[in-house]
């Protein structure tokens, strides 16, 4: 049956289209009413003010200390929030031992360009089968710091140097470790670095060797022996946090003899020194930073906190 395209037919078609098309659209909701949009709000207190003044306003860094379940990537992990009395000492430590040395050495523009902008705190560590996770970095943007409830820093009540100074150093190292990753993810470290420890890396087996065994193979820590990237950043953060004298002391304490893998004492020491040299050179050529000067500043800050 042929449909006669008549004038009537066309009018019908046209008007129907117009009618359907003119349906009132759903009005966009009043966006102010969406719960939680624009960030969470709570009544600001002294801790919030401190963070605003010392981290957010000068460096655009957010310190998310109040519990938010969505901040942690592993939702199956059992974690607890941070204790309020930890927040200001921790923020102060972050400024003094990490932000200030880099800003003093390389300038605020450099620091603000590459610094992670969000810190998230967990009161407890993330317990895993063989070990505890103390920190993680995500996309150069966020650093998660864990087990902050166990941290005692010089100046806090109950601080005992003999018991607590190692934890403070570990905390500071965690930040420098993650920051080290961010830097080399922007400008890669020299390829030669991978050859220094060639054949000696432990991979997933890293937690089965001791610190001494690692150093006997020219790795500054067991974790450094797990792979190239962590070897790189562990070297950086030990250099900075231990300082020149501390680093030398570690190298000189490598026991005489040969490691299980056949590395001699002299060889191990040479490897660590070569790694140090590569780090220093990298900071100069990639970022224009005098590493030894940065080291002096960082070490001085660390000493004031332990």
């Amino acid at each position: 049956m042929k449909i006669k395209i008549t004038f009537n037919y066309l009018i019908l078609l046209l008007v129907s289209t117009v009618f359907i098309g003119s349906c009132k659209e759903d009005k966009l909701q009043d966006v102010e009413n969406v719960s939680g949009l624009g960030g969470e709000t709570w009544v600001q207190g002294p801790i919030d003010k401190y963070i605003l003044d010392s981290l957010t306003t000068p460096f655009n860094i957010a310190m998310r200390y109040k519990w938010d379940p969505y901040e942690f990537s592993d939702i199956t992990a059992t974690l607890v929030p941070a204790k309020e009395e930890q927040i200001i000492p921790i923020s102060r430590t972050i400024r003094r031992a990490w932000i200030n040395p880099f800003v003093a050495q390389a300038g605020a523009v450099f620091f603000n360009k590459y610094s992670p902008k969000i810190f998230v705190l967990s009161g407890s560590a993330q317990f895993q089968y063989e070990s505890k996770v103390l920190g993680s970095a995500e996309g150069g943007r966020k650093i998660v710091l864990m087990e902050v409830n166990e941290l005692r820093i010089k100046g806090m009540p109950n601080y005992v140097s003999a018991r607590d100074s190692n934890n403070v150093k570990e905390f500071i190292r965690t930040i420098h470790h993650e920051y080290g990753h961010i830097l080399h993810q922007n400008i890669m470290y020299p390829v030669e670095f991978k050859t220094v420890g060639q054949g000696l890396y432990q991979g997933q087996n890293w937690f089965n060797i001791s610190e001494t065994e690692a150093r006997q193979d020219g790795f500054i820590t067991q974790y450094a022996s797990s792979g190239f990237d962590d070897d790189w950043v562990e070297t950086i953060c030990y250099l900075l946090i231990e300082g020149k004298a501390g680093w030398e002391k570690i190298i000189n304490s490598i026991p005489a003899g040969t490691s299980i893998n056949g590395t001699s004492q002299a060889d191990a020491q040479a490897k660590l020194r070569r790694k140090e040299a590569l780090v220093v050179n990298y900071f100069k050529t990639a970022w224009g930073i005098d590493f030894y000067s940065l080291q002096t500043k960082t070490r001085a800050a660390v000493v004031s906190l332990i």
Partner: protein
Amino acid sequence: MKRKYLSYLLLMVVAGLWSCKSEDSVFEQTADERLNASLASYQKQLVDAQYGWKGAIYPATGGVYSFYFKFNDQNRVVMYSDFDKTSAVTAKESSYRLKAIQSPSLLFDTYSYIHVLADPDGSINGGNYGEGLKSDFEFSFNPDTLNTANITLTGLKNATKLILTKATQEESVAYGNGGLGKSLLFSNIDLYQTYFKRITVGGVTYDLNVNTEDRTITFTWLEGTVRKTFTTSYYYGSLGVTFVTPLVNGSQTINGFTNLTWDADKLALGLTAGSTNLTVAGAARPVSADLTAAKRWWQFALDKGSYWISETGFTVAGKEDFFGVRSIPNFYYMLFFPAIASSQGTSYDAFTAYDGSGLMGPAVVPTFSTDGRVTFSVLGTYGTNQLMNTTVLAQVEDASGYYIIQKSEIKYDMVSAKDGRTWISWWYPF
């Protein structure tokens, strides 16, 4: 022709209007409006409770813990907790907020007493490595819980139950005055040197068996000649100890114990039960023995082809490991192995110590009496350990025998019938 146009027009208009029919909404307000209203309503209810809230938390690993919360409208909450003596009397302030996570939720977002239960560090709460007591600090409001006498919440991670009940002025004041600390004195019942503890309320004599770790209490009494028992969980509050399920015995209802006092010199616990002020008395024998418990205990291990263990040996007059068996080199535990072997046709049990390589101590033949006791006669000894073969042996073969009290499926206590002041706790670990 005109009519045709008219009908087309009508058709178009109707079609046009119909296609514009907007979806009918079940609610008058949008989802966000309702969510915001809900959060505001819960917030108001939490803050408006003039004297704060009592909270009972039931973590996944068992037991019940009680808290006191006082919320203000500045996102601050003050807490007390019955977790230990310090948290009972020291107020701790931290923060909270309400957030829409799938459903309206209450988040205790900085660390305080409530988080101690959830802390994955087992050394903090005695829980499992990496899990703690499997509790929660983020809770969603149960539906329809608004404007009821209690507020019921469910934990987001472990479905922990939290029940909030408004505190009275008296209760609130008592928290501030260390009332919760006084209630914790109830746990001193563990310091009694006799195994059996007795109270008489409304003319009925009850034996109390309290597990202060799991926070449960078992009442045993006689109704005529019938042995009756009742068990309930309890939690501490600022005025005393509250039973989750009250004891109802005829016309007598006991909801808990109040006015707890402790005399450290006399080792005596005072309390009020119902309307009776009393002191818990020690007793040498049970008010009513469980006549089949001894045989059940013996048979349980036999059926498993295995044995009971005790890591702490005999407790005498409140002193654990009174005989010092733990000083035996490489001591693992004491064990009781029913029908371990026979000698010349006589089956015997091992009631010995074990050090990883051999047994030390008496081999015994049990006799089960009709009044519920078990007595042991020594057939011989294993090994040459002096302590086990003389001192402990003498205790084992004590002619008074032992009453056996079942604590759980895998826990039994063996109490000397001589004076109720010597006992050993067995459990099945396999």
